[in-house]
């Protein structure tokens, strides 16, 4: 990669190449967890926001950012973890959504504005309008709201019979 532009612009370009360790189809920028890159004195401060309170990848991600920025000669670098405003899947880029689908993970829809609604008691098939990332069928059903990582849920496609993961809106 050829770097050009200001130091912060170069850092943003570098962050496009740092992958999420648990969903390596996405870069940290695709995921929308890089909130800011700013110069603070001699250091470059990268502001990250966690996806989930208990995401075990948080420390690995911070270290990957430090390693990548340093390797690009843009250091020294500091990391600021910023909790508010809380990360939402709405911050995943369009490019990121395309990459997720190609990777076999159904991307999240928009976060339900009515998320304050008490509880939806609906059947498992009725709840699912998620397109299968393999065959695009809408005949899918949710097996579990929780998957191999906190950010994903488990589905299966009734048409092509394949199981798949869905990046759940939050």
């Amino acid at each position, binding site marked *: 990669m050829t770097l050009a532009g200001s130091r912060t612009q170069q850092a943003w370009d570098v962050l496009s190449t740092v992958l999420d360790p648990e969903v390596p189809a996405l870069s940290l920028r695709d995921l929308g967890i890089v909130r800011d890159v700013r110069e603070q004195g001699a250091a470059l401060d990268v502001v990250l926001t*966690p996806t*989930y*309170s*208990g*995401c*075990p990848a948080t420390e690995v991600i911070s270290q990957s950012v430090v390693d990548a920025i340093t390797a690009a000669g843009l250091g020294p670098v500091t990391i600021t973890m910023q*909790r*508010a*405003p*809380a*990360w*939402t899947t709405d911050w995943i880029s369009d490019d990121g959504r395309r990459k997720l689908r190609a990777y076999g993970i159904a991307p999240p829809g928009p976060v339900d504005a009515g*998320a*304050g609604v*008490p*509880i*939806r*008691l609906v059947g498992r098939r009725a709840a699912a309008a998620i397109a299968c990332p393999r065959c695009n069928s809408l005949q899918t059903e949710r*097996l*579990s*709201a*929780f*998957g*191999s*990582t*906190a950010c994903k849920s*488990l589905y299966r496609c009734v048409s092509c019979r394949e199981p798949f993961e869905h990046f*759940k809106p*939050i």
Partner: protein
Amino acid sequence: MTASIQLTHTPQLQYLLRLGDTCLILGQRLGEWCGHGPVLEEDIALTNMALDLIGQARALLTRAGQTEGRAFDEDQLAFLRDERDYRNPTLVELPRGDFAFTVQRNLMVATLLKLLWQKLETSSDAELAAIAGKAVKEARYHQQHAADWVVRLGDGTDESARRSQSALAQLWRYVPELFEADAVDEAAAASGLGPRWADVQADWQAEVGAVLAEAGLTPPAVSSFRSTGKRGVHTEHMGFILAEMQQLQRAYPGGVW
């Protein structure tokens, strides 16, 4: 063996510990399901929720340590307190029981936490508000998961309905403690730190009541029994869960991965 840390219990600290310890102890109870879930998907779901809860507990205990004034960190607070200094309601320390018991307790706690987080998003403590803004999204998924299962089991086979009714009978007498008013809650309400837990009682009853009705389950009459975990007076189960949680830090002081 590492000595216990001693805390100065201000109302503010106790308010934060009640939230943090609720997440910490329920997270530990759910973690006990790892490798024991009735099906693989539920094994994964319960441990995912445990992870969320422990993440929330980490943030809350870190905040509690900052306000206490002697710079205790999240690990010291999680692993080096004496039993009396844990301020979770008794409900979350009860042994995990069967799956019906686990999902019903999850419904009760997730509904409580969701309603509290919603109000805590406007806390006068900016860090607590930020923690709440994240946690409320997670609590919604926990509540939905529990509600689905409570209905499925309550309205399921004779065996699942029998177990569900039995779980409800065991759990219901620990509910009044959740909403008991005291000086800690009054101080939090007065300072804008957060709501009295009693402030969410009506919404809690409406939401939990709707799920129980859909499940065909009837809560027993309220008894005069009051549990006292939020005041630091716990059941005999608390010592055992703390022994399991603390053994490593007590035996190997400051041990890290």
